[in-house]
């Protein structure tokens, strides 16, 4: 990574209003690195200081510890979601409701929350379990697979498409679009074109889907696109551009995230046989393993917000329009909050992690993501209780500017027949 926290940065001037106690770094969070690099960077930053100024792009403030990260999330009146990428304060896309601030935000959430609430997740669970069983049965006899490509990308995608009423087979379309999008999202300038093309292709998919549903007098049961076409906000039908923004972000957020966490969870199980054996013997601990994955192996390096008005925040003279970055990876591994913060503890209590954010933008799909991860462990361990990482080469992860995710996870096991 670019440099160590606190090192003087060559060729980079300390902006005049950055207080002397606030170290200046030049940290690029976009590169693909060996697995764990971004968590370790977050640990190093957090233990060096509470606040940094990062001179990447136009420059932004980074807050490294749990309390400040939660405070940023819980104060949308100070920290707007107009941009959530601190290196890109004026993004070309608009995610709805991700980038909508309260009070408008809650109106959009109300349109969507039932689709991803616990009752809906319970209803979808038998179908999700069947999808999982099919995917595990496909790989089990082979004695090995790339877990990322053959399971982690497929399973949450097929479940998500089922939940919103689309054919699970459209996963073949969505998986590469989502991959291309997140290559560019994290700030890699060489990938901006691929990101734009993926975004356009996804948008066209939704334009076509809406076209076939428009004019249908009755909303299709269990079909989110149809539901949104018939929905009203403040008594008016939704603008079609807004529907497109909603559907696009749901796919991006729903498909990539659970895939990322599944990769880290199964890497942990492959490399920690004691925990794996314990989950086989005590499956009631599986939800705890899921929460601990979301905490310790968070895929969110940080989350950006735009400062809504001039304010002094923990000694920092923030100005309207400044960008801030709450280091979720720093917060979730903060020893001021967690005992044995850098360890995976099955049965951990008071696990109040911010892996699904906090405040009004708390992850809409959290209930579904948890269930998908639980089902994955339950069904996999029933068929493949013992497995290992099948390579000595270092595993690599996508940069922290997007969500971190293992690019591949080769696993091996005793083939079943």
């Amino acid at each position, binding site marked *: 990574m670019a440099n160590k926290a606190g090192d003087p940065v060559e060729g980079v001037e300390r902006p005049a209003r950055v207080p002397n106690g606030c170290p200046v770094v030049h940290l690029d969070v976009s590169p693909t690195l060996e697995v764990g690099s971004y968590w370790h960077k977050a640990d190093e930053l957090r233990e060096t200081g509470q606040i940094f100024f990062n001179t990447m792009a136009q420059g932004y403030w980074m807050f490294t510890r749990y309390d400040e990260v939660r405070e940023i999330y819980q104060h949308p009146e100070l920290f707007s979601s107009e941009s959530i990428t601190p290196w890109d304060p004026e993004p070309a896309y608009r995610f709805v409701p991700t980038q909508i601030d309260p009070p408008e935000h809650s109106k959009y959430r109300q349109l969507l929350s039932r689709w*991803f609430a616990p009752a809906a997740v319970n209803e979808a669970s038998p179908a999700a379990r069947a999808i999982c069983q099919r995917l595990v049965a496909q790989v089990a006899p082979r004695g090995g697979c790339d877990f990322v490509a053959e399971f982690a990308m497929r399973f949450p995608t097929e479940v998500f498409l089922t939940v919103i009423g689309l054919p699970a087979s459209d996963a073949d379309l969505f998986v590469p679009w989502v991959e291309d999008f997140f290559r560019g999202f994290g700030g890699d300038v060489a990938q901006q074109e691929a990101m734009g093309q993926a975004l356009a292709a996804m948008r066209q998919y939704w334009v076509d889907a809406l076209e076939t549903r428009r004019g249908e007098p009755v909303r299709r049961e269990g079909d989110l696109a149809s539901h949104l076409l018939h929905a009203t906000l403040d008594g008016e039908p939704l603008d079609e551009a807004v529907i497109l923004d909603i559907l696009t972000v749901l796919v991006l957020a729903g498909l990539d995230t659970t895939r990322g966490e599944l990769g880290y969870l199964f890497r942990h199980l492959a490399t920690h046989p004691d925990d794996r054996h314990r989950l086989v013997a005590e499956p009631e601990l599986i939800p705890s393993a899921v929460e601990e994955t979301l905490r310790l192996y968070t895929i969110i390096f940080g989350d950006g917000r735009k400062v809504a008005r001039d304010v002094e925040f923990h000694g920092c003279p923030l100005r309207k329009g400044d960008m801030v970055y709450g280091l979720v990876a720093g917060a979730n591994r903060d020893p001021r909050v967690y005992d044995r913060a850098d360890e995976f503890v099955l049965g951990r209590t*008071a696990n109040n992690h911010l892996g699904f954010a*906090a405040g009004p933008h708390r992850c809409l799909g959290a209930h579904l993501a948890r269930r998908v991860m639980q089902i994955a462990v339950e069904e996999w361990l029933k068929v493949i209780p013992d497995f290992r990482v099948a390579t000595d080469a270092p595993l690599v992860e996508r940069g922290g500017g997007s969500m971190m995710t293992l690019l591949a996870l080769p696993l091996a096991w005793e083939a079943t027949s």
Partner: protein
Amino acid sequence: MKITVHGDRCTGHGRCYGLAPGFLAYDDEGFVTIRDQIVDVPAGQTAASREAARTCPEQAIELLDD
């Protein structure tokens, strides 16, 4: 002991009803049903209620000793 969930802080993480399923329930949108109510913690649910309060990422849960 009594428990309340501050509705201005709760955002529906669902940690509380996951930890105390025999006591706390969720509504159609995934919020705990006792937002802005003060209710008695039933016998046998004290430990689960304490754990729910400690686990809530929003610090929305308050326990009130009798």
